[in-house]
């Protein structure tokens, strides 16, 4: 397999991911690139990854989008799904695994289908993020459908403390709203419509409770 076009090819000083150029030698049989007929990749997934690859000047660029596609299809980046994507992309499964393991949103172990990331970074922590995380964990309990985790700043400190529920932002949340949200997800109702970030006006268009210049 050739090194990725461009970077690394012409410049020996650039770090090249060895997993990319050589595969992972310790991986035994998976060190090679699987053939498509060996992996039984669903047509839909194959076509999707092929479309993704075609968007880039270099097909390797599609690795994160392809892993997203695998995760959407199987709920997480399953070893089988990774092999399928690797076969379509003509890279080693070890390479895609090493990419997947780098990123917090790609799961290389089974997780619940509903994902709740509660921000515990600075601004949310100041406004009760830790308590919110505890409340979500308690509300989800042992239910394996839910994956609740603390997360770094999600870029929504204006609605601290906040959580991302199935990739949509909600805040500012009271601890008691964690249970409400979980029940709404279970019953298929709209989750906390009043707290959906998408519906918030610009801050400067809302009443200013302080507003002095002192």
């Amino acid at each position, binding site marked *: 397999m050739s090194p*990725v*076009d*461009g*970077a*690394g*090819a*012409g*410049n020996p*000083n*650039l*770090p090249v*991911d060895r997993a*990319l150029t050589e595969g992972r030698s310790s991986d035994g049989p998976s060190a090679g690139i699987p053939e498509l007929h060996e992996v039984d990749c669903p047509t839909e997934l194959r076509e999707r990854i092929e479309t993704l690859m075609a968007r*880039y*000047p*270099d097909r*390797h*660029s*599609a*690795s*994160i*989008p392809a*892993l997203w596609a695998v995760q959407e299809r199987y709920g997480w980046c399953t070893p089988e799904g990774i092999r399928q994507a690797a076969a379509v992309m003509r890279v080693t499964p070890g390479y895609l695994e*090493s*990419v997947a393991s*780098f*990123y*917090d*949103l*790609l799961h290389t172990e089974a997780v619940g289908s509903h994902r709740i*990331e509660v921000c515990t*970074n*600075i*601004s949310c*922590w*100041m*406004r009760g993020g830790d308590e919110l995380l505890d409340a979500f964990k308690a509300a989800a309990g042992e239910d394996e459908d839910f994956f609740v985790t603390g997360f*770094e*700043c999600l*870029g*929504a*400190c*204006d*609605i*601290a403390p906040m959580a991302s529920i199935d*990739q949509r*932002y909600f805040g500012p949340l009271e601890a008691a709203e964690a249970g409400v949200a979980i029940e709404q997800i279970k019953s298929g109702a709209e989750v906390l419509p009043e707290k959906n*970030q*998408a519906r918030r006006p*610009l*801050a*400067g*268009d*809302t009443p*200013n*409770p*302080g*507003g*002095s*210049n002192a």
Partner: protein
Amino acid sequence: MPDPRETRVLLEHADDPALRTIDGYRRLVGGYATQERAYRDMEQDEVLKELEDSGLRGRGGAGFSMGKKASFLPRGEMAKYLCCNADESEPGAFKDRELMQRNPHQLIEGIAIAALAADAGHAFIFIRGEYDAQADILDAAVAEAYEAGYLGKNILDCHRDLELVVHRGAGAYICGEETALLDALEGKRGNPRLKPPFPAVQGLYGGPTLINNVETLSNVPRIVAKGADWFKSFGTEQSPGTKVVSISGGVRRPGNYEVELGIPTRELIHGLAGGPLPGREIKAFFPGGSSSPVLTAEEGLDLPYSFEAMAGAGSMLGSGSIIVADDQVSIPHLALRTARFYHHESCGKCTPCREGTNWTVKMLERMVRGEATPIDLDIVSAVQENIIGHCLCVLGDSMAMPVGAMVRKFRPEFEEVMAAAGSPLDHELQAVVQGPAETLGASV
């Protein structure tokens, strides 16, 4: 009605959801007229000159002149690229989210015009994976722009092509660092690269690459439409233009406010953001995201909010994100939160950053647990000094600078926390009674 203290340029009409569509963008702000004019009537050098003359400084953190950076790209027939940095993962920053969510076409038009200036044929918006809703909005807007002929092949019959791809990341702060972003975009783990070569010379797929922040690129259409002098009529001499400032933490009305650079910081925090929560007082704030050294209220509130004033005070404007800590916030705990973030996000490639963030977290944990002695404060400070300037990228410095500043400026508070948590001896005694597991794990 927007707050009269704001100067909405980038956020003009941003309260109108119609702005998100191509029709709304055209109708409300005359969108895409500038791209048409630039593509039909302007040479690459004219666009570059306008951008350079405007003095527009990068809004992603470093504040480097956008026009100058674009002019560094070599000329000639070769594949060149433009990457819009929409990773926005620094704690405290959430302005790019607002800009993309409310006015995606402004960014797309800015990218199209900047691509003309850089002579790039392929552009990417690298957006953090968490911003799924905003990426959906961008996807829809990009499709509209292709449909209307502002992207794609032979744009506006001007014999110029531009492909634009919205690329979603998957959760890693380090991918906001420009060379890590390039690696991530090439489909690898997002590890920073050694510089030089700089991306302008050798970037994506080894080709010359212009990398700019969302807000930087969103400024481009109006600068080219109205001219450098118009742009310089806002802000200060060294910090021209407006800035969307994210304010969060201990304030009554957190949010994004667009103001002229140079506005008094007090007006941002006490005025626009509504000041501290009832009954509280402001103790300190990060003026430019969690990577910027904290300023005490006395030091910082009366400074103009500009690149130069923040640098003059030993801190930085960075991405323009203010995080306010009030008198209820324990600074040692704040330092620990800050350090934990950088430790979690360190890519591990260089030792001072990997080990330095690790040890800083451990030592701060010992402090707040009462297992440290005052000399540990000096050790923490020394660790920070040994990180600064010794790493491949500035993530290490990004922890060392704010943590170092907190220890330096709030030393008595650290000593108080350590004293209140009990003496090391007490804890050792406790450990003997309860069993050694805890102390073993925590000892240096």
